[in-house]
Each structure stands twice: as structure tokens, then as C-alpha cells.
């Protein structure tokens, strides 16, 4: 189970938005858009409608950000907005929302491929599966030190300092290795996109 630790960068970004830096909100969108997409798609089946609701969620979040006081983690707060926006969207169209609520912990692990109705075409499924396969192979092909730090960061949610203690190396080395691992994976993804 992933640790629900509030990310320092989310708080920093929120504080910057509250001081007038809209580009900080761009980064929050980039960071959480896939998760919000996954949450919304549990309620809304049509892909185009999902896109509309995702955008509406983030606009609502921006409007409410002025009063956000970090009492909960930013993602927890955003998750609630996504759920409420999805439900209201369905109610406005006389559609009944699901009787269950998506659990916050599950929201990061849902398989949304079974939920979308009009975009699970063979081509899309193939493309998704292919991408996942390439990423998995690329991770396995990484040098051991790079693979280890990436796995510790992504799956164990450890800080750089914690990883440096485990690996018995400086924090700067941990940071550099994680970056190099991501760079290698990015090149593979870029190749598929091209």
C-alpha cells in the first residue's frame, strides 16, 4: 500500500498559486491529471464526457484553491472535487451515480480499461498494452543501481534521504540515479510516440 504522505512539492505549488503564480497550477494539473482521469472514468463512461469532467474538476479546484488551507493533502482534496463533480455531472443529466464511492486508496490502482465504453477499441488496447510492455522491459534492462533507486522511490515512496541510507550513498547520487533511470525510460517512450 502506498504511503499517503503529503508531498512537499504539492504544498509549495499550492502556496505559489495562492500568491498568483498560475504556472504552478499547470504543474499540479500535469501531476494529477491521470489520477483524476481515472477517478472520473469510474463514474462517467463516455470518453469525451470524461475529458469535460476532468477539465471542470481542475477549474473548480483552481477556483477553490484560494481557500485551501493544507488541512488535508492536496490530492485528497482534489479527489473529493473530482468525485463530486462527476456525481453532479451525472445528476444534471438525469443519470444515477454509482451507489458506491471510489475509495481514495483504490483510485490510484484502478484498471480503467474495463470502464470506458467507446474508446476501448482494439487499437487503443494494443497501444496501451504495448506501451506498458515496453516500459516494463526498459525497467528490467536498467543497470541495477538505477533500477533499485527507481523502484524504491516509486513503489516504496521513500524519500531521497531514506534511499541514500539504504543504498549507503549520498543523496545527490540518489537524485542523479533516479533522473538517469527516468531519462532512459523517457527515450523509450519517445521512440514509441514517434
Amino acid at each position, binding site marked *: 500500500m*502506498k504511503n499517503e504522505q503529503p508531498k*512537499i*512539492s*504539492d504544498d*509549495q*505549488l499550492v502556496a*505559489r*498559486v495562492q*500568491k*498568483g*503564480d*498560475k*504556472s*504552478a*497550477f*499547470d*504543474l499540479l*494539473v*500535469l*501531476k494529477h*491529471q*491521470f489520477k483524476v*482521469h*481515472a477517478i472520473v*472514468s469510474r463514474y462517467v463512461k463516455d*470518453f469525451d464526457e470524461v*475529458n469535460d469532467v476532468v*477539465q471542470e474538476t*481542475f*477549474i473548480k479546484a*483552481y*477556483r477553490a*484553491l484560494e481557500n485551501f488551507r493544507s488541512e488535508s493533502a492536496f490530492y485528497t482534496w482534489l479527489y473529493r472535487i473530482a468525485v463530486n463533480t462527476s456525481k453532479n455531472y451525472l445528476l444534471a443529466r438525469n443519470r444515477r451515480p454509482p451507489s458506491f464511492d471510489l475509495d481514495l486508496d483504490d483510485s*490510484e*490502482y*484502478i*484498471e*480503467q480499461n474495463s470502464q*470506458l465504453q467507446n*474508446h476501448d477499441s482494439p487499437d*487503443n*488496447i494494443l*497501444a*496501451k498494452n504495448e*506501451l*506498458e510492455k515496453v*516500459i516494463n522491459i526498459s*525497467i528490467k534492462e536498467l543497470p541495477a543501481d538505477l533500477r533499485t533507486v527507481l523502484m524504491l*522511490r*516509486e*513503489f516504496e515512496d521513500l*524519500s*531521497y534521504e531514506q534511499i541514500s541510507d539504504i543504498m549507503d550513498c549520498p543523496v545527490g547520487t540518489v*537524485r542523479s540515479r*533516479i*533522473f538517469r533511470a*527516468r*531519462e532512459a*525510460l*523517457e527515450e523509450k517512450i519517445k521512440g514509441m510516440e514517434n
Partner: protein
Amino acid sequence: MVVNMSVNEHHLKEALSAMFDGEAKEIELHRVLKELPSNGPLRDTWRRYEVTSASMHGYLPYIIRDFSSEISSAVKLEKTYGKKSISQYLIKPLGRFAVAASVATVALLGMQEYKNTTEYSSVFVKTENIQLNLSSSSLRSSAEFGIPPTMARNVAISNHSKKESITSNEILFQSKKSDSDLTREQIQRYLDGLLHRYNQNEEKLISE
């Protein structure tokens, strides 16, 4: 694995990677945020970091769509937080000035009022404690009692004891806000009381 990039680009992307993990320094955050709006490749890099993470955690979407550009355009139309209008910049200092000005005005008025009324207002007087160095039956000017001459015009001066009883221990307490007419009457009573007291003392001395 060969990745050709400039040193600056390298540092920027490494900062982005640290930001992704919540491990970036404040200055790096500042640099990245400054660069992000106009740097398409940097935004793409972030998106690919997200794809990697989503794939590792099992929530990779079917169609990877970047909403950030559309949302960014929509957010540009929304109000910007933290920025004040010109009037808001002026309100606080003007407000402070107004408060300071009103306090100063009240103080000045209060001072003037006090100056004008200080001799005969807010006075607790026990007539028995007043030392009167007066020669017999002389008309004393009101100035000796600290009263401006104009205020003492109507003071009754008499060598005869007043029939109306004036308590020698009469205490005058005058509110600073009282009307000046009331104050004059009270001054008169006070002076009459003083003179009466004096006359009584004189008579005692003479009889002794």
C-alpha cells in the same frame, strides 16, 4: 544510452525529476515554473514521467491525453490570486491615515477643551482645604482663584453671610463635557461658598 542535451537542459530536467518526487529545492522550483509555460519539450518530459509512473502503478489510461494546455488556457481567464487592485493597495494606508487623523483631532479638541475648562472642571474641591490669604473684606479678583475675569462677573460678593446654606465641604465635580452655563452657576456657588467661609473666619477672628 546516449542523451545529447545542453548542460542547462540537463540541470533543468534533473530539477524536474526531483520536483516529480517532491525533492526539488525552492530555487529549482522557481526555475522550472518559470520555464514550464513556454517550454513544450519540458512539459512533454513531465508527461512521460507521469506515463512511466502510471504504468508502474497500473493506472495508465487508454488514451494518454494531456489536459494541461486546455486547462491552462481556461485558468488564464480566471482571477489571479494574491494580486491587489490599486484601490486595495490604497485602502489600508488610507485607513490608517484616517484613524491617525481622527485620533489626533480628538486629542487636539480634547486638549483645547481641557485648556479652556481646566480651572473649573473636573475639580474636586473641599473648601476647608483651601488656604485663603485674604485681607479683610477686600474684594478679591477672580484671578486669585484661578478663574478668568470674565467668568467671575456674576459672582456675588458680599460681606454678609449668605442665607442659603452653602456647605463648606461642598465638593464640586464637573464633568469635562458639561455645558459652560452650568459650569458658571457652579462657579458662582463655589465662590460664594468661599467668601462665606472667609467671612465666617473673619468674624471668628474679630470676636476672639
